[in-house]
Structures are given as C-alpha cells and as structure tokens.
C-alpha cells in the first residue's frame, strides 16, 4: 500500500423494519402527540458477515428502554426527532441537528462515559414527519462523525497474513467471551491476545503500543473500514495523547462462517497514522443520501400495510386470489370486483344477497327499499340489529351502513324509494313525486351492471324488469314461497353470435330468447298451489329459504359474469328424464359450470329443478310492444300503466286470453 493514501470509511445506511413504523405510529398517537423534543431509540448493527453494505436497523424494540439483546448484533443509542408538520421537518436545521448529536458524543468522551460504555461512541439521529392521514412517512437518518479527522493508511490486510489458524481461533474464543456491550471497541494484546475493556486505555497509557485497538466492524469490504472507526479515532486522540501523529495498529473484527465454522478469517489489520493536530471537532457529518443518491430525506407510503382498512381489503382480495391460484386460474376476479350491483329490496333476500356479493369481492352495492327496520326483521335479515329497529332506521340506509361495518372497503349506498307499480293509481298530488321516483330508479338501473329483484311483492318487479331490459342490464330475480323458491335470470335482447350446440336430451334456449319473471309465471299457471314458489301467497317463509335463494341468485349472477357470452349464454332444459349433462357434452358453460335459466327449489322434499323457458311474446313486462311503448312514450306510458294495469293486457292481447282471473297481476294484494 502507498504511504500517502487515506483510509476510506464506508458509511452506514438505514434499514427500517416494518414494525418500527407500527410502533412509531402508536407512540405518536398515544404518547408523544405534539411533543417534538426528541425520543431516545435503539438501533442495531451486525458484525456477522453479509454481502451487503453496512446498515443500522431499527424495529419495534428500538423504542424500548433497554435495547434488544441479540447475539451478533450491537446496540447503538440514537435519537428520534419527530416533527409535527412538514414545514417543521423541512425547516429543521439539519447541520445543527447532527452537530448536536456529535457534541453529545464528544461530551460522552470527555466526561468518561465512553470508557465504561464504548457503544456511546456510536450514535445516530432520525429526523421524521408522519402524515398519518395519508400514511406518508418522511425520514432522514444521520450517523454523526467528525468531518475533519483523517487516518493516513499504511497497511490494510486480512489478519490471516499475520496470524495462523490457532491464533485466530484463540482470538475468536477471547472475542466471544467479551460482553456484547464491550464489543464495540476494545483492546487486544499483540502477543497473548488478552482482551481488555476500553477503559483500560487510561491505565495502559505508556504501553499502548503493545495492544491492537480493536473494534467490531459492520463493513465487510476488505479495502475499507466501517464508519465506527471515525469516532474511535476521536476517542483515542483524546485519551492517548502519546498516539497522536503515531502509527496505530487497528483490528477490524469481522465474523464469518467458513465451512460451517465461525471464523475471523475476514477480519482486517489496519495500520494507520493518527493526525498530530487535535481539538474538539467543529463540524459533524453523516446525513444519509436518499435513494436518488442525493443529500435529502426519504419518504415511504405505508397505507397498504398500516391502514386497517387497506389490510382488510388486501385480505379479502387475497382470499379470492387463492381461489384463482388454486382452483380457477381463468376466473376474472376484476370483472366481479368492478360489477356495480343494485339490490331492489333490502329485506331478508337483500341482506343475504349483499353478504354473498361481499364474499365475492364486489365493492359497489346499492340498496333500495321503502320501509324501516321493524322488530321482527333482525333475526331473519342478516344485516340488521335490534338497535336499528329502536332507531327506526330506513332499511336501505341501515343495510348500507351495516355493510360498511362488516367491510369498510365496500361502497354501499341506501335509497328510500317506493317503486311505482301497475294498478296503483297516481293522483294529481303525487304525480311529481312519482316522476322523480321513476327517474331515480331509472338512473340507478342505468348506473349499475347487475340488477337484483328482491322485493316481497310481485307487481313492484314490473317496472325494474322493463327498465333493466331496455337499458341492457343483467337482471336476476329471486322470489320466495313458504318453503319454495324461484331464482332466475331474465333473458336479454339483441343479437348474439351462433351457439348451436345441441345436447342430446336437452332443449337449448339462447340467452336472448329466455323469458323474464313475468313471462314464465304466466306461461306456467298450471302449477299446483303447493308448488307455487312465488310471493303470490305472502311473505311467511321458512327462515332458511331466503339464505338459500339469496346465495343462489348471487352464484347465478357470478356465473353469468364469468361466461364469455354473459347474459347471452344459452340455457339447457332437460327433455328426457334420463338425460345428463356430462363433461364431454358440447355445452356452452363457463368455468364455474352450466348456466341454468331458473332454479326452483322445494324445501318440503329438499329438491331443486332447473327449468328453462322461452320469452313469451305477449308478456306484460318484456314483450316488444311494451318495450316499444316505453321507448316512444316514456313516462306517459308508465303513468297509464300505474293508473290501470288493464293497459298492459290490452296492449299485449292478453285480455281475451284470461280466464283465470286470480293469476293476473291486477289481483295482487297491495299489502306486503
């Protein structure tokens, strides 16, 4: 090595464990609040080999009164200055701050504290500001060292050039017997390797040349020393005036694992000359460069890992992703997540549907209902509590609020609306209000992707059935009897690509030929009374049935969303009793399986059938003449229908067909 060279030092960098920020946030909110005066914290560096540049780590234990006791790591006392505003953070005198920290090291040298606790020669300072609304953390680490102290380097070499294996083993045994709090800096006898605590420098004043000045190094680069040697020099200059201007032998202790054995093979002998001039350091340096290599602070956003709401959202998404990774690699979870769902009816079905949608990761759910939570509701309607009844909350609003309590990541809204119904005349005084309601319902439907009909009366389904069809939405319907249910998807309109895959024993109906709730009910009036799965009787039902139907209608919706044809997906209706859809049938199904048109279930026998029916050309809700009337006349047409549902029958030519009066919508009871 050339005589004139100066020894180079590798500075520390900072490494923050996530748990540090958790604790930091907790202390800021609960303890320090607006306090800015500085808090003592611990940092740790390791003297065990890694391929990395040296770093000081902080974690949650950094805030403890006593630093963590971990083998292989040395504690460094530091100070955290947490500013209350970004302005205070920016305007803080950084040079002054690191100088104050350096002056404290200097104090500890001259008052002798460093003799007992050599670790005090190392220190660090953290300047920070936390924007806890946005979870932005600004911070800047400094590792103070005097700016003007240099070492003239004579030799820097592996100690293996100087010592044999036995000697190195002996060195390690002695080293490992040192207390961790003395390992920062110590003395090693050059002949017999006896190790002395740093405070021995005072007594050994005249024989110091018989000792190596030793320190535990965090740096593993064989050409350089770690940062800690800088302050050690300062200490030696102060206490050992005979060493000033002299050559000193340093041992940089670096522990590594060589062939399964702990070894000092990577340790260095550094022979260097201390300066002659000496005094209290005027300037201190050591602010860390940021990730762009500039002298400046760093910022990290921790919203995703500290904000509990984000944690919940991530966990929900991850749970669904596991389904994708493990079972259904082709499932499109984003499509489900982004589906805007409108739930018409916030009763027992609405609650069940909302919960299953939440389970599928749906984030946008709107509720519509016209009543308040009553005392009988909470036991059956899973989103309500007793308190909601006492407060007399509107059901739609209560459902939306409570859904957010279950999962704050959901965007849920409630609308208190009475859906206008055929045969419910609109008086002069309510005309304006009815128009507003129709407009509101239309807007809600237009804004959504999937509309669920979950009301407890039949005629209230008419308007949303028509609007859903006109505006091209997926409409799904669930209706309950005492121990029966009907779950169905409404047919869509428009042209679709060919899907003519016929399966033996099944009739195939394309999605744009499928019927709606009204066509199907009218085309199947022959069902015996006990099989009437609809709300034609009343809302007294077996309590489990709404959970079943609510779950099924969501699963049906999800299957439609995952089908490449969406609402145009064909349905298959079993023609022969023995026919089965098997895996090699050329069925147009989706990754979740087949898409039925409707599901009718009977709890008395615990059975379910999957009928599919074509649209009915004279349907009072979805036939072309009705759609056309709405398109051309709009509200005027609707008003006529509200005033007299006879209009519908006349228009569709049903009037003359009716023989069974009690199967028509006009005879529906108004009560719910």
């Amino acid at each position, binding site marked *: 090595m050339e005589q004139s060279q100066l020894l180079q030092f590798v500075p520390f960098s900072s490494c923050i464990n996530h748990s540090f920020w958790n604790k930091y946030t907790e202390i800021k909110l609960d303890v320090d609040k607006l306090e800015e005066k500085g808090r003592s914290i611990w940092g740790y560096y*390791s003297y065990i080999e890694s391929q990395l540049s040296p770093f000081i780590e902080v974690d949650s234990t950094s805030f403890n009164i006593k630093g963590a006791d971990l083998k292989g790591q040395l504690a460094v006392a530091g100070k955290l200055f947490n500013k209350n505003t970004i302005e205070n953070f920016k305007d803080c005198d950084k040079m002054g701050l690191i100088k104050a920290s350096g002056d404290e090291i200097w104090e500890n040298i001259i008052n002798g504290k460093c003799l007992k606790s050599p670790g005090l020669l190392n220190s660090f300072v953290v300047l920070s500001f936390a924007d806890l609304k946005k979870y932005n953390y600004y*911070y800047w680490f400094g590792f103070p060292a005097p700016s003007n102290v240099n070492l003239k380097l004579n030799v820097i070499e592996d100690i293996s050039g100087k010592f044999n294996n036995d000697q190195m083993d002996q060195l390690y045994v002695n080293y490992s017997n040192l207390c961790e709090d003395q390992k920062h800096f110590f003395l090693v006898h050059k002949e017999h390797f006896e190790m002395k605590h740093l405070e021995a420098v005072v007594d050994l004043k005249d024989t110091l040349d018989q000792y190596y000045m030793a320190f535990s190094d965090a740096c593993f680069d064989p050409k350089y020393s770690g940062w800690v040697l800088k302050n050690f020099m300062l200490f030696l200059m102060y206490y050992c005036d005979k060493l000033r201007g002299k050559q000193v032998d340093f041992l940089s202790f670096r522990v590594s694992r060589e062939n399964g054995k702990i070894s000092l093979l990577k340790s260095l002998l550094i022979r260097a000359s201390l300066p002659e001039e000496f005094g209290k350091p005027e300037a201190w340096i050591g602010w860390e460069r940021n990730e762009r290599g500039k002298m400046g602070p*760093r910022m990290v956003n921790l919203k*995703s890992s500290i904000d509990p709401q984000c944690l919940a959202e991530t966990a929900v998404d991850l749970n669904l992703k596991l389904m994708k990774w*493990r079972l259904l690699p082709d499932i499109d979870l984003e499509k489900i997540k982004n589906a805007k769902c409108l739930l018409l009816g916030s009763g027992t079905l609405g609650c069940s549907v909302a919960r299953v949608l939440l389970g599928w990761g749906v984030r946008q759910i709107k509720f519509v209902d016209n009543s308040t939570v009553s005392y009988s509701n909470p036991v059956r309607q899973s989103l309500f509590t007793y308190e909601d009844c006492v407060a007399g909350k509107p059901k739609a609003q209560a459902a939306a609020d409570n859904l957010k309590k279950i999962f704050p990541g959901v965007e849920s809204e409630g609308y208190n609306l009475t859906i206008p119904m055929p045969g419910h005349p609109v008086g002069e005084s309510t005309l304006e209000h009815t128009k507003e309601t129709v407009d509101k319902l239309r807007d809600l439907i237009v804004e959504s992707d999937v509309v669920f009909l979950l009301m407890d009366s039949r005629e209230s389904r008419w308007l949303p059935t028509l609007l859903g069809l006109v505006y091209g939405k997926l409409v799904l319907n669930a209706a309950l009897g005492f121990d029966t249910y009907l779950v169905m998807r409404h047919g869509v309109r428009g042209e679709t690509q060919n899907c003519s895959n016929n399966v033996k024993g099944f009739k195939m109906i394309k999605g744009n030929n499928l019927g709606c709730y009204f066509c199907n009910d009218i085309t199947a009036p022959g069902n015996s009374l006990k099989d009437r799965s609809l709300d034609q009787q009343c809302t007294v039902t077996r309590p489990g049935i709404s959970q079943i139907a609510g779950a099924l209608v969501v699963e049906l919706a999800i299957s439609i969303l995952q089908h490449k044809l969406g609402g145009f997906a064909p349905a298959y209706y079993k023609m022969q009793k023995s026919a089965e859809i098997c895996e090699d049938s050329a069925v147009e199904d989706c990754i979740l399986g087949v898409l039925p048109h409707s599901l009718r279930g009977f709890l008395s026998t615990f059975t379910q059938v999957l009928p599919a029916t074509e649209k009915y050309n004279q349907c009072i809700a979805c036939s072309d003449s009705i759609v056309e009337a709405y398109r051309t006349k709009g509200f005027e047409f609707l008003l006529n229908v509200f005033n007299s549902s006879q209009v519908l029958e006349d228009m569709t030519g049903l009037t003359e067909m009716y023989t069974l009066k009690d199967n028509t919508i006009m005879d529906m009871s108004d009560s719910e």
Partner: protein
Amino acid sequence: MLDWEEFSKHLSQMKSLSDELLDGWAILGKTGTENGAYLAKKVPRLFEEALLLFEYNVVYDLSYGVPKLCFNVFRTDGSMLQLNECIHVLGFDGEPVLVLTQMDHPVLQRPFFTLHPCKTSEFMDFCSNSKNPLVSWLSAIGPTVGLNLANEYSQCT
C-alpha cells in the same frame, strides 16, 4: 403431530444451537404460555440491487398441531412487499403457488405470508426418526421461501 411442549423444547434446542453458530434466531413472545412464543430471524438479502429484509417466524399452529413457517419481506424504508412481489422475489413466477398463503400470525395477530400447514403433519410423520423434527422440517421446507438452514443444524436431528 407435535404438541406445544415438544414444539417449545425443539424450539429452545434450535435457538441454543443458533446462538453457538451466531445464526441470529431469537425466541420472541411469551415463553411461559401455551402458543405464546415463536422463533424469529431476520435475513437481509440483495434483490435487483435493493436490500430486502426477510423476517422469518416459526410459530405453532394450534388447530393443526404442527409448526408453521411465516414470513414478511420489507424494503429498507419499512414498506412491505405484497404477495405478488414476494412471489417474484422468490422466483415463483408462472408456477402455481400451492402452499403459500397469507394468514394471521398466531402471536402477533398480523398478516404474514405463510406456508399453509395442511400438509405439515404428513411431513412430520416422515421426520419421526429425527431427534428434532422441527429442525428437520424447517431445513426441508425453508429453502422454498429462501430460508436455508446451515448444515450444522443437522447435528441436532
């Protein structure tokens, strides 16, 4: 299956050996209480020129009665890697991730990436000849998530 007593015993044994080897494992949590303690180690690693800190925890899973390996990965600014980033760092890209999931840490009650314990019991039966099945298990499954146990640990199995 491994009961809590056995788990703690093996845990302490591994920790003692780690101390000898200066391998950095520490027992954290409350050692006295059932399922209150766990073994932890931080492993710094360079990835694409950035320092990442892998924090490995060996915890006990009460319902499966087996040890469980969980971990989180941090950047030096304290931000945590998301699962897809972890998968990238661990080199799992494009492979089906069959056992890696996210679960709450039984002691810390915070989400950690976890090797799901559903198959661990079978594996533990396989290690029944080992004097320390915990170490045997960890040395076998650790490498899948970048945790390599030093050969010296074999002396306690």
